[in-house]
């Protein structure tokens, strides 16, 4: 028998190639997510995967052998909200990029976090619009030259895990693609968590980010991610000046709050129990 990768069984047979560039961080994340599902002993048929537009959105669609909904730019969380409320017994996971979820789709992101709807959102944050050719994003570091910030980015960048936390997400973690085991662990925790769980995965984009910024190859960029990662525990003892240019990684939030579909079910029970019929 031809040997296959142990996670190959989770991949759509017709998806024989990825749309991602050589050296992209999406492959690492794809494996980390599937490993988490595998380690949790879950079935792909338990899931509906929803994605938007952008490189990261191509992780579940077409790769995952499951129900997948590939949606419009910025709106996967809104589509996923309909899926989850109409079919609460299914797990809903959104995998998309920073441009998709936080620029054009920022409104849906904060409201889903506020509602504490039971879904897992994994955001690949590569700090740039990769698929469209390397334009500036709300997550692009200040000063960076991109195709649409040729004189250097003059805007502040988003702390998207901070945004998720402020908006009410009940599980929030951030890792870079070099911390693969930690990503897997966080995805597992997110899958066990009831409510809105958010994992920011800082990734490198050697083609659109690396080439333009002269940061070198994929492996050089991975080394760079490793070098600038600081754990949340360590960061708490550091000054803002010391944290300049660093990425704080770790688990930021893990709390319980009323979950939307549970509240909806309770409301339904009450409404259906009322007996004063009128129209």
């Amino acid at each position, binding site marked *: 028998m031809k040997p296959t990768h142990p996670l190959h069984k989770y991949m*759509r*047979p*017709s998806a024989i190639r990825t749309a991602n560039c050589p050296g992209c961080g999406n492959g690492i994340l794809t494996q980390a997510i599937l490993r988490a599902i595998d380690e949790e002993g879950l079935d*792909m*048929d338990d899931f*509906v995967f*929803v994605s938007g537009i952008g490189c990261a959105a191509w992780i579940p*669609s*077409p790769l995952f*052998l*499951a*129900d*997948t*909904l*590939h*949606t*419009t730019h910025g*709106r996967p969380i*809104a*589509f*996923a*909200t*309909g*899926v*989850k*409320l*109409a*079919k609460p*017994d*299914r797990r809903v996971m959104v995998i998309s990029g920073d441009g998709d979820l936080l620029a054009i789709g920022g*409104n*849906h992101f904060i*409201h889903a976090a506020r509602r504490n709807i039971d879904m897992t959102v994994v955001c690949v944050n590569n700090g740039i619009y990769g698929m469209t050719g390397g334009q500036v994003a709300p997550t692009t570091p200040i000063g960076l030259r991109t195709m649409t910030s040729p004189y250097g980015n003059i805007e502040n960048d988003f702390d998207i895990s901070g945004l998720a936390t402020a908006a009410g997400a009940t599980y929030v973690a951030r890792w870079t693609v070099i911390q693969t085991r930690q990503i897997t662990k966080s995805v597992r925790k997110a899958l066990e968590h009831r409510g809105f769980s958010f994992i920011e995965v800082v990734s490198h984009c050697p083609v659109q980010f690396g080439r333009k910024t002269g940061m070198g190859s994929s492996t050089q960029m991975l080394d760079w991610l490793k070098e600038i990662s600081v754990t949340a525990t360590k960061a708490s003892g550091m000054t803002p000046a010391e944290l300049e240019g660093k990425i704080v990684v770790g688990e930021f939030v893990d709390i319980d709050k009323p979950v939307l579909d549970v509240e*909806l079910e309770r*409301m*339904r029970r009450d*409404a*259906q129990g*009322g007996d*004063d*019929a*009128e*129209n």
Partner: protein
Amino acid sequence: MNTDRVLTGRHFMQGNIACAEGALAAGCTFMAGYPITPASEISERMASRLPALRGENGVFIQMEDEISSLAAVIGASWTGAKSMTATSGPGISLMLEHVGYAVGTETPCVIVNVQRGGPTTGIPSVELQGDLIQAGHGSHGEYRIIAVAPSSPQEMFDHTVLAFNLAEKYRTPVFVLADSFVGHMREEVVIPDASGIEIADRVISPGGYNQETDQGFLSVDVAPMPIFGRGFRSHVTSSCHTETGKRNVTDATALDNFIRKLCGKIEKNRDDIVIVDDATNDADIAMVAYGTVFRAAREAVGAARDAGISADTFRPVTVWPFPDREIHELSRRVKAILVLENNLGQMLHFVRSVAECPVHFLEPEVLGTLHDIDRIVAKLKDIAP
């Protein structure tokens, strides 16, 4: 709150409420919406009624905007739920990308547009038939869609049922193109027994559906829908795709097939979809009017007769697909057509493109108001052969 799905009986009911009741009678279990005048009563009614439906899992959710409302509706529909949203012009403008999404992914859903006066924010509480062409052609790309135009609270009920049935049957979004007159008007609405209401349900892919080989998309005969949650492992994308749902964004022939199958599905079945209400018999002049304007045209028939003019009404009930053959046939029977709309002429151009007789047009003296009967009769006198 009443926990029954169908409120059988005679009611004095507002059009928007009748629309909500029609949706429930048709089997709707999911609504997502965002407040907007003059459509909010539909959301309010559904927010109250859906969770209360006895033994059911009805969902109403107020989303953060209209974009997400239609997105949630489409997501819910893919789990098998009959789903809807309701809004007015500004909301429709925001939804248009997802109208195309629902067309492209063949997602049954109902979109109610209680039209208001525009362009832009315009006047929320004044009606205008300004969104006719938008309903048919507002989203980008080439596609065909279905829209029905109710002209009374009773039809707000009946046409919403019809819209759900057409959506389910043809796996497509369907517009209920109402307006603030008919939405806020109160009249008698008769709701039959549940057994007396014809309901259509989508055909779902059979067990054993193979996502690699079986057709889940792009059939002019409407492919069974491989809904989520049944182990079908469906690949659903709005990008150009094949009959199995597999993306193909490199090949123009795939795009050609994608467009032709989606449009062909509506065109092949247009005789089943298109409904016209033709009262012209052997009249000399046909008054072509839809929605609330139809009421004014109907009122003008008697006054015209008193003035010695033979004129009667021809009403497109489905405004999309446009009843081109029916109007062409009409134009060969009558001596003239008078198109009445509460705009400066939208359906007019579609009528002119197929009519063989002279085609005239009359808008109300003040846009956003109903046509004055005397004004209609004066126009009929003008154009009478």
